[in-house]
């Protein structure tokens, strides 16, 4: 894995998430504001194509930490740093574990995997935030509404996944290295 390129990509997507993603925000009745989790797209891609599970989980951890550092989730109940990085890493590891039984290049498969990834990561984030911070100020209807919101985020992100995959396919060689011991054509040691 080319970690410097991965870090640059995470930074760029984080900037998009915190600025231009406001254009993509829609408000749904009974759900609230929903916008795509742009960092989930490369995280799912890494989970599907990274050669080692540790690489996929490390990349997921890095992207989740970027979200934790750029999200305060409202004044009055500031959120903790760490839950999203944990959620992303665990979800990436789970996806990497089952990827061999999936048709990775199939668009529908990638969308479904994205929904599962977001539900796992955001669900874990919400659960940890409820335990740490929200339980003092949020009631059960609000918690249920946030779960619906997380599902909306997952579905919206899945809709964006095909476009992200096209972009990431072009950058795969710069992000994911060849497995150790296998030389490319024309390379010598």
């Amino acid at each position, binding site marked *: 894995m080319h970690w410097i390129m991965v870090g640059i990509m995470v930074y760029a997507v984080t900037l998009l998430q915190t600025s231009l993603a*406001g254009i993509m925000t829609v408000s749904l009745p*009974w759900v609230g504001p929903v916008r795509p989790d742009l960092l989930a797209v490369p995280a799912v891609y890494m989970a599907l194509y990274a050669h080692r599970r540790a690489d996929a989980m490390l990349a997921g951890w890095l992207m989740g930490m970027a979200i934790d550092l750029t999200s305060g989730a409202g004044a009055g109940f500031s959120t903790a740093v760490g839950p999203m*990085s944990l959620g992303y890493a665990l979800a990436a590891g789970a996806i990497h574990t089952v990827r061999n039984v999936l048709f990775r290049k199939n668009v529908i498969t990638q969308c479904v995997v994205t929904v599962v990834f977001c539900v796992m990561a955001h669900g874990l984030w919400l659960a940890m935030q409820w335990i740490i911070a929200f339980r003092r100020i949020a009631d059960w209807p609000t918690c249920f509404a946030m779960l619906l919101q997380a599902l909306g985020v997952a579905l919206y992100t899945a809709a964006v996944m095909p476009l992200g995959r096209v972009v990431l396919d072009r950058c795969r060689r710069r992000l994911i290295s060849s497995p150790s011991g296998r030389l490319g054509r024309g390379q010598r040691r």
Partner: protein
Amino acid sequence: MSKRLSDELYSAHRRLPITVRQGYHDFLVWSDPPHMNYRTVLNKERLLAGLMLASITMSLAGRPVAEPMRRFARLLTIPLADAGVYVTTALKSYGDTGSGVPVSPDRARQLARENDDLRRQLDLLAVELRQSRRRNAEIQGIRSRFFAPADDLPIELIPARVVMLDSLPYSASRVVSAAQAGRMAPGQAVTTRRILIGRSKALPEKLAVVTVSSLVGRLSETDAYSARLQLITDRKFGLSVSIRRVADRNNPRKIIDERDVSERILGDEGFTDVEAFAQGDGAGGMTARLVQAHHGVRRGDMVFTSAGDGWTGGGRIPVGTVDSVEADGAKPGLFVTVHIKPRAHLAALRDVYIIVPPSFSSPRAEGD
């Protein structure tokens, strides 16, 4: 392959090709020393385990750990995120076509006649008013040139700019009932923003923030050069407001005059504003509950901050307009719930001003 054979192959730490037979096929592979792969795998896994443990620890530590880390992250993201927010707010402003009550032709002609009458009245007062305004403007111009606060509003205005949104949309959201669904505007319900301030020292929290026309929120989580702006639509935002009932001769309303408990037609004279407490609903507006029904508040009435409120510098700042009024669920005959639509276009918020009354001073400047 036996351990002895693998050791012999890698005695010089070189990779050599070997043939591995599996079933009926031979594979030519570059084999790696098992112990070298073992160390590599362990290093990454150990790192991953350490990072996961750090995540759990930081989660349990909460805000004391989160704030310094986020402060550092903002230094890296704010300079470039500003450009993206500029594009976002520009597009949101372009898409806002405004909304209002449609006017019939008869109503339009009536309004035109009323305008003519009012214009004639204004002309009679214009000469005297023009002279006094010119004199006042000269005085204000001289004072503002030296950055002194104006006499009518002894406050300081600090310009600021919205530069960043939250990366997650869960800020103060709530379940919206079906009756309210039609009033939601897209992209409006994320109720905090990160703003950039040209001050190296952190400002005090809870200062009012306004645009050129209305109140938009207050500061929270202030820091050097930036702060979090809590919008008026945030569920945790509340303030005392004055509802100014607009007298309409074509659609008079009956109210109970509290001075002598008599029923009267609302006119322009002699009636005080209705005091209430408004709170953000987390969805794009504000709600003022337990407003007495006999005040006759209705759609179109204007909402201001309460007079004498030191938090806003003493001035009456527009907040929004009454969007709808519904009977209170518990006591429908006595109280009503007023839904307020903010005057500012919060989805396209870009340039704002922070009100600093003379009584405020930075706690950090005092050694806090």
